[in-house]
């Protein structure tokens, strides 16, 4: 990283709005899950929203993003309607994937979000394809691929890093290192836990950054994005971050110390950013309260919409296996 990039007032507000909303969105989902209103599983991204917010706000419309699997923040900051995202997570017809994909497999190609998958590590090869499309079409668009520390022990990570560097693909790999692969600490998953260092083996820059430091994370991401956009090749960014909830909602979390969780929570970037927006005189207290109130209304409306939406019909469930009229 060279010098810290300055974040202008307009962007600071955009970051605050999206960070606040992503947090409330995640909290709302967690509450709904506890009340038994969500089928299947929920993998909370609370505590890790900042990266998705920065990407969602700063990427260009023609860039593709393969989101980190917990990152509802990416979808929301990219402009996906919250009602359609909640509906998808609830498995309803009005969801962004018609209620068939659900939380882990949600995508919205019209917002450049593609490649979500329930298989850890599988996103990287798919993201190579998105980057290759940009290269092939000679656009200045890029691809960004998010994944967790657990994905770096998959063969697909090694293959994809090598190929991206070899072909000079316009891609940024972003590893959100939250210190645990599901319920197992990093030190039990890999000998070398400095993930950014691995980039060197593939011939690309690798940079680690504190994911709770907005300015540092913003700067590192902007430099990697610019590098990809200018056809200087891929980068690996290791964002050191932390999830406040378990691997899944309901996880008893016996594998980690409560003090560790509290130490990260104490560094929460959300109130820091709120104070900054206020103290710099960008928004006053009333404006902040109004903004937050609007989001509460938006959330309530989105939840009500999703809950009132029908489940997919049998006809829906038998569609889209093939693009052509094909049956066994």
């Amino acid at each position, binding site marked *: 990283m060279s010098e810290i990039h300055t974040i202008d007032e307009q962007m600071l507000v955009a970051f605050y709005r999206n960070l606040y909303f992503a947090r409330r969105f995640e909290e709302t989902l967690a509450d709904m899950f506890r009340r038994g209103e969500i089928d299947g599983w929920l993998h909370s991204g609370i505590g890790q929203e900042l990266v998705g917010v920065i990407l969602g706000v700063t990427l260009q419309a023609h860039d593709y993003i393969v989101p980190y699997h917990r990152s509802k923040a990416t979808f929301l900051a990219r402009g996906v309607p919250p009602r359609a995202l909640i509906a998808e997570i609830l498995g309803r017809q009005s969801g962004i*994937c*018609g209620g*068939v*994909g659900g939380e882990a497999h949600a995508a919205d190609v019209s917002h450049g979000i593609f490649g979500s*998958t329930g298989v850890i590590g599988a996103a990287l*090869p798919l993201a190579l394809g*998105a980057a290759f499309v940009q290269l*092939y079409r000679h656009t200045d668009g890029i691809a960004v691929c998010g994944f967790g520390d657990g994905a770096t022990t998959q063969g697909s990570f090694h293959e994809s890093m090598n190929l991206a560097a070899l072909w000079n693909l316009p891609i940024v790999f972003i590893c959100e290192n939250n210190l645990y692969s599901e319920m197992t600490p990093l030190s039990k998953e890999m000998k070398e836990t400095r993930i950014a260092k691995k980039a060197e083996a593939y011939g690309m820059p690798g940079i680690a950054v504190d994911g709770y430091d907005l300015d540092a994370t913003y700067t590192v991401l902007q430099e990697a994005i610019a590098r990809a956009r200018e056809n200087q090749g891929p980068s690996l960014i290791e964002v050191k971050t932390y999830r406040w909830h378990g691997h899944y909602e309901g996880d008893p979390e016996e594998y980690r110390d409560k003090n560790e969780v509290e130490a990260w929570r104490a560094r929460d970037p959300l109130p820091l950013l709120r104070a900054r927006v206020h103290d710099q005189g960008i928004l006053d207290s009333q404006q902040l309260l109004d903004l937050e109130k609007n989001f509460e209304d938006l959330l309530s409306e989105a939840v009500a919409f999703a809950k009132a939406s029908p489940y997919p019909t049998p006809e829906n469930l038998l569609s889209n*296996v*093939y693009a052509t009229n094909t049956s066994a």
Partner: protein
Amino acid sequence: MSQLSYRRALTQAIDEEMARDAGVFLIGEDVADSGGAFGLTRGLLAKYGEMRVRDTPISEEAIVGLGIGAAALGLRPIVEIMFMDFIFLAMDQIANHAAKMRYMYGGQVHIPLVVRTLSGGGFRAGMHHSQSLESVFGHIPGLKVVMPSDAYEAKGLLKSSIRDPDPVIFMEQKSLLGAKVEVPDNDYLIPLGVAKVRRTGSDVTIVAIGIMVSHTLQAAEELAQEGIEAEVVDARTAMPIDSDTILNSVKKTNRLVVAHEAPAPFGFGAEIAALAAEKALYYLDAPVIRVTSKFTPIPVGRSEDYILPGKKDIVEAVHRAIKGG
């Protein structure tokens, strides 16, 4: 129209489709500079350039995943997996992503991807260079599986596969690479999911796929010497299955033999036998008989000939079918 080898028919199909559609590109191990391990892609790099014809590292999972991503976002990738046995390295991408992506994203994308791969015996190269895995892929919703039985079929089916909006596993039959038949020089397509009656007959239906079609046609000539007229149906695609053509033939001949090079359990033959049992049971005068490889890995060298099925096995199966099992 000219005599063309299976190998050159495949090259011609790729060439014509690359000329026709700027979104078609080809990647794989050794496909560009060296023109393919068996020369199937020779000349394409010089003609279309290195953006569209690319050598890749030995990274099956990454290159198939790249193909899926590019296909979902509007290109038409052809990814070559040198031998079908190596396709297991890309299994997550094919089975969990190429096959399911359209469905799981609610129809937002389609995946016009072709995975070309050499399959089957004939080179006596052993268990890691000889398998036919059509039933593995036919079992997964979302995939199509194509097995061309000669050079004419190879060209028409590959061109259709490249234009198809769905992911296709295209199994090139390696023991047919040098075999020549009449192939039109012009553009023609063979639709996916439409079987072809290669020989008409009234005594028994033999449904064959891939390399087994040529063995079956030879067996049918031999059977004709004995006065047995076999109807030979080239299934062409293991998925989709052309049920109508197969059932119409069975209803006419009342006897069914199915021939494929893969082993019997959970195989294409089991599927066709089930189809006959479900839809044409009362037309059958004899049990359905399957001609398949033995249920072993494929050994190296001439021992392969003992394990894989051939013309003799088909003739024997027909004799059993005529006798009533």
